[in-house]
Structures are given as structure tokens and as C-alpha cells.
């Protein structure tokens, strides 16, 4: 990883004053090393706490609270002999791979076009590209159904025009397209972050050798994107493994089951829920995701090939694409309008109507009832303030933890650096519901009054949501740090800075944009998150997501739309403020 030798770290006289009796090291540990151990311990604790009860559950024949259980492999046996489980695995593979593929197809060209080429209205297009990320996929899926479903507004119009509807939303490709639109912003943001820091000298070199703009794009810019592409595709892949809303909305009517809906119907909604099977299935997902993380590590092994922020700064120039830029701009506009804008406008419009159907003009039933309902019940209002608190506090904590974890994993001689990375990415493998149940047990099993103190408070939700958002935070900072040349660290170290000093004096400002990026992503992730809260939240710790679910189930779709609109507004304000801040910082 680095040229720094262990010696340099440990022989400095100053560090000997700070002994760390807990950690048996031959040489005294510096404050950097101490912090590294703390990070490892914190991550291990957070990741292991919910996993252990799940693993344990997967080999018990009775629910954990039942004292009389025995060890058994029956859960796994049952899972694999269950008729149709093979089909479920196949469906999941098609859905997850399709989603990942489509996500990249959407995200990479857009990121490159927006950041690296002179595009008409580039900034605006870039911003609007990210919209779907702010909408919970439940809402996006619902929006798509009202537009493109068998009786949607667009489908009806197309049927009237040409007699048939040439697509079928209720299918695996339909699910994958919707999910890809929802998740593309993640890959997009990763790629954009990396591109912003791209080394212009490489492009200049290509130009000097006579390459045209297109050739530069395909031989220099895109290949340099491999780290963010790998990170985001792994993230998207695992997210589509566990996403529930879209498969549930589209798949149930036509009985297409994927892993998450299988868990949902067989585990949680079932006539007699089987927590053993739930544990076994979660363990399987865990294995799959650990495998993807290993693959990721292999792919990015030679990480230094992608370093592009060197000691000497060159301002990247925008590439000229000629007439192609207009084609590109129109393409993006169409995508944004049909993928995101129409569903979101439909959603906002929906929040002001009583009923929303192609059969009757929605203008006939304009109303503020949907908002009134939310503000009439203190519990619903409280869920908004709760979500805000959780997302704000959580985003800061998680991004900080992710930042330190990235530094330890990628920029230290810590011998457990790899472990730190795996731990930080492991929560990808944990479906939200499982995280909720796992933490519920973990808190219940805490010794003495500690568990009682924390149970039923917002802290539990922050911890659970934070864990879920950690990989996102890690994933958005890691590619940025990989592009920062090691010579910068080394220069600092040679000048006498220790590990932490290097960060505070050199890397901090270089990483500020990525950190703010992580703040935004984790904030949005946490304000949308709800599945982990289903088992953890109590009457006073509801979040927007659980309230939306409650309203949805009651059939108050209008109020769901109203709440989603409020959530959208909150997110938009937050992102705008954060971007302003980011702009101020990076210009400085």
C-alpha cells in the first residue's frame, strides 16, 4: 500500500509518552495507531452486533426469545428444498444484474458528458440527473405505475395513439429499469466526484499525441473511472438485492418473486413467520455480498494506476464534442423528463388531489386535505422532526466514521486495514429489516440497565440507519482518496507530520468535497430509510418512512404523496445548502 516503513511511525520519541496498555504492541503505539484501533473496534462492534443474533438465529429451530430452541441445520435445508426457491434466485440474479448494468449505462455517459464536455445547460442537466435519488423507491415505483403501468397516464395515451402498449412494466426488465433510474444517481455522483478530480495532464498528453475529443473520452477519461464504477456497481448490486418496494409493487400482481419479496412474504408477512428461514436467507445474502466485496478488492488491487491528483495541479479543460453535444443533451433531457421529472411532478400533483386516475381529470378534486391530515396528528409531525434529527446527526457521525475508516483502510500501515474496509462495507449485505431485528436483540441483550436506557430512543434508530448508510459514505469517499497521490502524504510525513497530522494538514482540504458529498449522500439515505425502523421504532420514534408506510397501507395515497413531497422539499433545501457550502470550500 505504501512506501512508508513501520519504523518511521513507531520510533519517534514523542509517541512513547502515549502508551496504550490495552493493545499489546511491541513498540509503543502513536495516537494515529490508537485511533486506528478505535475505528476497528467501533466498526467491529456495530457490524457484529446485529449480525451475531442473525447468524445464531439461522441455526436455531425456534425464535431467539424461545428458550427451548436447539441447534439445527433445518433452516438451510428448508430454504433450499422450498419449491420455487431456485426460481427466486434466478429472478434475483436477473433483476440485480440488470439493474446494475442499466445503472452504469445511464450514469457513466451522463457523468462524463456533464463534467468533462461542453454541454448545453450542463449544470442544470447534472443537477436534475440526481433527482430520483431524493425520492424513496416506493414513491418512484408508484409514480411509474401511475404513468407507465397497465392503466397509467402515458400508457393510456400510447394505447389511444397506436392501439397497443409496447412495454410491460410488471416484468423483471420493468423492475430493473425503474430501480436503475432510482439508483443511477449513486453511480453518477461517484463518477462525477472522480471526474472532477481527474488529472488533466493525462488528457493533455493524449491530445499532444493527436487524439480527438472522442478518442480522449474512450481511451483516457472512461478507463480512469474504474474505481468509482466498481464501487458504485457493487453498491447498486447489493442495494438491488435487498430493495423491496419496486419488486413488491410490480412483482406481486404477476407473481415474480425476488429475494427480498421472498423474505417479506415468507418471513414477515407470512401466516406463521419463520425467523429461522429469515436468518438463513440473510446469511446467504451476507455471503453473496462478501463475495462481491472480495471481487471488488481484486479488481482494484492495483489502485495506484488511478491516481490522478498529484502534487502539481492542472485545471482540466472541457472537451468539445461538436454536434454530438446536442444529441447528448436531448438524450439526457428525455431521460430526465420521463425517468424522473414526470413521476416526481405527478407525485407533487398527486399530493394536491383527492383521486388521481386517467379516468377523470384530477383538477376536479384539488385539495389540501392530504397535507391537513399530516399536520393534524402530532405523531405524523413528530415523524418529520425525528427524520430530520436522525438524518442530520447521523450524516455527520457516519460521514466522519466513514472518512476515518477510509483513511485507515487506504492510507495507513495498520495491519488490520483490510479488515476495516470489509467491516465498513459489510452493512451492504444486511437487509434493513434484518438490521432492525438484529439491533433489537443486541440492545435487549446489553448488560444491565444500558439496554433499557437506549431502547426506544432515537439513538437506536440513528445507530441502525447509520450502519445502513456507512457503505454509502465509505464508497463516496474511497474513490476520492485513491486519486490523491501518495507523494502528498509522504511529503507531509517527511516534514515531520504524524499520521493524523498528515490528514489535518494535507488531506483534509483535498478531501473536503468528497466529505461533503458523503454528508449529502448519507443524509439523503437516512432520511429515506425506513425498513430498519420497522422493528426498532416505538410510538415516539417514528420516521417519515414508517409514517408513509402507515398512510399507504391505510389507502391514504394522497397523504403519502404529500409526505413524500415534504421529504423532497427538505432534501432539496439541504442539498442546495450543502452544495453552496461545497462550492465555497472548493473555490477557496
Amino acid at each position, binding site marked *: 500500500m505504501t512506501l512508508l516503513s513501520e519504523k518511521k511511525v513507531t520510533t519517534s520519541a514523542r509517541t512513547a509518552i502515549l502508551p496504550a496498555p490495552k493493545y499489546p504492541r511491541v513498540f509503543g503505539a502513536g495516537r494515529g495507531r490508537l485511533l486506528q484501533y478505535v475505528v476497528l473496534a467501533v466498526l467491529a462492534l456495530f457490524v457484529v452486533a446485529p449480525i451475531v443474533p442473525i447468524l445464531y438465529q439461522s441455526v436455531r429451530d425456534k*425464535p*431467539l*426469545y*424461545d*428458550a427451548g430452541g436447539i441447534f439445527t441445520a433445518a433452516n438451510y435445508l428448508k430454504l433450499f428444498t422450498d419449491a420455487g426457491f431456485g426460481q427466486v434466485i434466478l429472478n434475483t440474479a436477473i433483476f440485480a444484474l440488470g439493474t446494475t448494468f442499466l445503472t452504469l449505462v445511464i450514469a457513466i455517459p451522463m457523468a462524463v458528458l456533464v463534467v468533462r464536455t461542453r454541454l448545453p445547460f450542463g449544470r442544470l442537466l447534472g443537477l436534475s440527473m440526481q433527482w430520483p435519488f431524493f425520492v424513496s423507491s416506493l414513491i418512484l415505483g408508484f409514480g411509474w*405505475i*401511475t404513468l407507465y*403501468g*397497465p*392503466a397509467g397516464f402515458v400508457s*393510456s395515451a400510447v394505447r389511444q395513439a397506436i392501439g397497443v402498449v409496447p412495454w410491460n412494466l410488471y416484468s423483471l426488465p420493468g423492475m430493473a429499469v425503474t430501480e436503475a433510474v432510482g439508483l443511477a444517481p449513486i453511480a453518477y455522483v461517484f463518477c462525477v466526484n472522480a471526474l472532477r478530480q481527474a488529472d488533466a495532464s493525462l488528457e493533455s498528453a493524449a491530445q499532444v499525441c493527436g487524439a480527438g475529443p472522442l478518442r480522449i473520452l474512450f481511451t483516457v477519461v472512461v478507463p480512469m473511472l474504474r474505481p468509482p464504477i466498481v464501487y458504485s456497481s457493487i453498491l447498486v448490486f447489493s442495494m438491488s438485492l435487498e430493495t423491496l*418496494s419496486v419488486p*413488491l*409493487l410490480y412483482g*406481486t*400482481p*404477476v407473481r415474480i418473486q425476488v429475494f427480498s419479496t421472498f423474505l*417479506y*412474504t*415468507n418471513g*414477515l*408477512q*407470512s*401466516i*406463521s*413467520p419463520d425467523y429461522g428461514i429469515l436468518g438463513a436467507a440473510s446469511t446467504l445474502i451476507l455471503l453473496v455480498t462478501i463475495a462481491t466485496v472480495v471481487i471488488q478488492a481484486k479488481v482494484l488491487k492495483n489502485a495506484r494506476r488511478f491516481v490522478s491528483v498529484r502534487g502539481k495541479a492542472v485545471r482540466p479543460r472541457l472537451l468539445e464534442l461538436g454536434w454530438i453535444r446536442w444529441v447528448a443533451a436531448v438524450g439526457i433531457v428525455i431521460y430526465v423528463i420521463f425517468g424522473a421529472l414526470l413521476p416526481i411532478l405527478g407525485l407533487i400533483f398527486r399530493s394536491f388531489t*383527492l*383521486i*388521481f*386516475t386517467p*379516468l*377523470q381529470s384530477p383538477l376536479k*378534486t384539488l*385539495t*389540501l*386535505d392530504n397535507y*391537513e*391530515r399530516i*399536520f*393534524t396528528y402530532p*405523531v*405524523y409531525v413528530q415523524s418529520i422532526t425525528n427524520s430530520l434529527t436522525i438524518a442530520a446527526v447521523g450524516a455527520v457521525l457516519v460521514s466522519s466514521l466513514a472518512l476515518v475508516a477510509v483513511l485507515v483502510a487506504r492510507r495507513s500501515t495498520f495491519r488490520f486495514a483490510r479488515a476495516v474496509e470489509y467491516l465498513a462495507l459489510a452493512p451492504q449485505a444486511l437487509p434493513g429489516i434484518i438490521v432492525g431485528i438484529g439491533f*433489537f436483540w443486541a440492545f*435487549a441483550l446489553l448488560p444491565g440497565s444500558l*439496554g*433499557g436506557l437506549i431502547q426506544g430512543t432515537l439513538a437506536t434508530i440513528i445507530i441502525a440507519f447509520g450502519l445502513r448508510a456507512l457503505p454509502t459514505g465509505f464508497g463516496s469517499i474511497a474513490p476520492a482518496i485513491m486519486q490523491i497521490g501518495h507523494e502528498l502524504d509522504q511529503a507531509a510525513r517527511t516534514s515531520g507530520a504524524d499520521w493524523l497530522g498528515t490528514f489535518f494538514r494535507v488531506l483534509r482540504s483535498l478531501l473536503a468535497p468528497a466529505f461533503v458529498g458523503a454528508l449529502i449522500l448519507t443524509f439523503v439515505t437516512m432520511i429515506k430509510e425506513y*425498513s430498519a425502523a*420497522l422493528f426498532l421504532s*416505538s*410510538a*415516539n420514534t*417514528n420516521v417519515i418512512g414508517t409514517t408513509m*408506510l*402507515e398512510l*399507504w*397501507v*391505510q*389507502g*391514504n*395515497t394522497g397523504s403519502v404523496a404529500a409526505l413524500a413531497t415534504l421529504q423532497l422539499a427538505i432534501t432539496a433545501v439541504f442539498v442546495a445548502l450543502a452544495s453552496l457550502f461545497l462550492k465555497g470550500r472548493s473555490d477557496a
Partner: protein
Amino acid sequence: MNGSVSQRSATGRGVRKAGFAAVAAFSVLALTLAGCSSTPASAPADAADDGTGMPSYYPSDYSSILDASKAEGGELVIYSNTDQENWAPIFRDFQKKYPWVTKISANNLESDAVFQRQLSEMATGAAPADMLISNAVQAWATYAGQADTLLDYESPELAELPDYAQLMPNVYAMSLDPIGLAYNASLMEEAPTSIAALAKIVAADPKKYQDKITTRDVNGAFGFTVSQAFTEGTASAWKSLEGILPSARPETSSGTQLEKILSGEYLAGFYISSAPGYPAEEKSGGLLKFVYPTDGTVVIGRGIGITPKAPHEATAKLFLDFVLSEDGQNAVAEGGLTSYRDSVELTEGRHTYQEIEKTAGKDAIIRVPYTVVSDADVKTFVTRWDGLLG
């Protein structure tokens, strides 16, 4: 997690009647104030008074429960799968009657989580819940079938109620919520009044109805309970289902079913909970109709019981007696659930068990028994049912 338990639901229609449609003002405060002020003041107290404010048929030592409740600190913790809007009038009137109860926390959980959580917490020693309220029949029956899971308590109101008020020993019905049929009035020429009638309509024009009927997924607890009760209670049930199911698509919540019927994606649907069903009909301006099938309207009791070692045992007893009382049943109806005490008035926006008897017919009502169906029977049923789907 969306759309799991539409059985737990309803809207407080009484609470939001203000003429808001045209108001364009955006003040949050204004909205809140208007929402509150439109709540009608409610229901007179029970008659006969023996000094404690209790009806004459209450035991003479009832005041000891009152005293014990006052000593409990004015708190009550409920685990339920019932919505805030349903609770609002019930809590309001309960607190009016027993003003020392200042804090009621009603956790809204998934229908099954109510019991999983209680069992988990009993196992770990600290169980904060005083009462469990759910309409998940199988889960209730399984839970209450185990020893030491409920407090022994016979409500003095029981004598004043029909015999079906008691669902199981120590489990009482807070409401009896019917399951109905909905259809899109602008797309269906003929109005179905029963499942059998729907089967007939489908048989007359199979092409038009292919994939245009929605039913509740029986792989979920709610769908299974309703569908199993329907086939047990109606002789012609399987015949009708064999006609309809090949054209039908399953959904996992009544909310989704209604929304899609409204949009025209489905023309009709059955096994739809009345709680979201009625408000949807009301809002649709005639586009959607919600009816009780005359060949079998399944009615699910919402069970309420007190936990053993409840931290606020006396207050829980008061609450249980209250929801069964006349005041309580009026509040239940006001909150959007279906009350069943004879004396509850059927006014605009309220629904009662007696109303179902009138519209669907006494014989059509199928009350779901609180019994556990064996795994093998569940499997046989679900396999048969799934096999019929198109």
C-alpha cells in the same frame, strides 16, 4: 415493506371535514388549528351513577381499580397494529373520563410484530407493554394459546355485549371490521353485489376481465385468514373462486388494490378491508363503489387483551372496559373502525356491525374464529388457491 397490513387501518373521517378544498393558504399553523377545531365534541356519559361515575352493572368494588389506576402514574403503553387516526377519538374520550391518565403511547407495529416483540421482551425480562391490540387472527390465537401470555380479566361490560364480543379467553373484540368488494363504477356496466355475481360477470366476458380483477394474496396472513374464512363460511365459495381467480392478480394491501381499481388498472377487486374502502369510495366522487358481498362478508374481530405483569395493570383494565362501553364503542366508530355495540348510533361517516347485517344480510356475515389453522391445512389451502390463479 409497503402495503403489508391493510387490515389494520382506517381513517378518522370525523376529524377532517373542514372545507379545505379551495384554501390556498399554506400556513402549517392554520392547517393544524383547522384540523383540531373540526373535531366534534363527543358522546354523553353512561347513565346510572353510583358515586364512582360507573354504570350500575359494574361490580361494587370497581372503585378499587380506579384508585389503583390513579396510583400508577397516569401512563398506558399499548402495542397494536391500529392507526393513530383510529385511536384519536378513543384516547380523547378515555382521557376525558379518566383525566389522570396523561400519557398513552400506542406503538403502531406490523400485525405480527406486536406479538413477536411482546414475547421477545417477556423473554428478556423487561416488557413495557400493558395491552396488546391486533387483528392478526392466527398470530393472536397462537400467542394467546401459550400459557401465561395474558392477564386473567373478565370485563363487566361483557354482560351487555353480544356473545361474539369475547374472541378467546381474556381476548375481547374492540371492533368487528368487515371485508368487502370494490369496483370501478365507470368501467363496469353491471354492479357486482357478491363474489358469485362477480364470477358470473367475468364468465360472460372473460377477455375483458383477463388480469383485470384483483384479490388479496393468500400467502400473507391477512389474505389467508379472510380467504379461508370465506371458503369455510360460503358453500359456493370455491365455485366462484374457480371462475374468478384465473383472471385475477394478487396484491398485498387493500390500499394498493383500491388505488389500482381507481386508476382503471383493475375493474374490480375483493377481500378489501372496509377501513380504507369506505374513505376511498367517499373520495372517489362515484368512480369507485365499495360493497359487502351478499354471499359472504368476512368480519374480523380486532382483539384486545392485557399482558401479564402489565406495569399499569389497573389503567389497562379501565381502558379495556372503556373500549367495550357505550362511550368507547362510539369513539371506535368515530375513529373509522366498525363498532358492534347495539346502542351505537349510525350517523354519517360511521360504520357499525348492525349496518352490515342490514345491507349484506344476517346470514351473509362470516365471523372469523380465533383458532389456529395447522401448517398442513395452510399449505393445502394456499396451494389450491395459488393453482387457480392465471
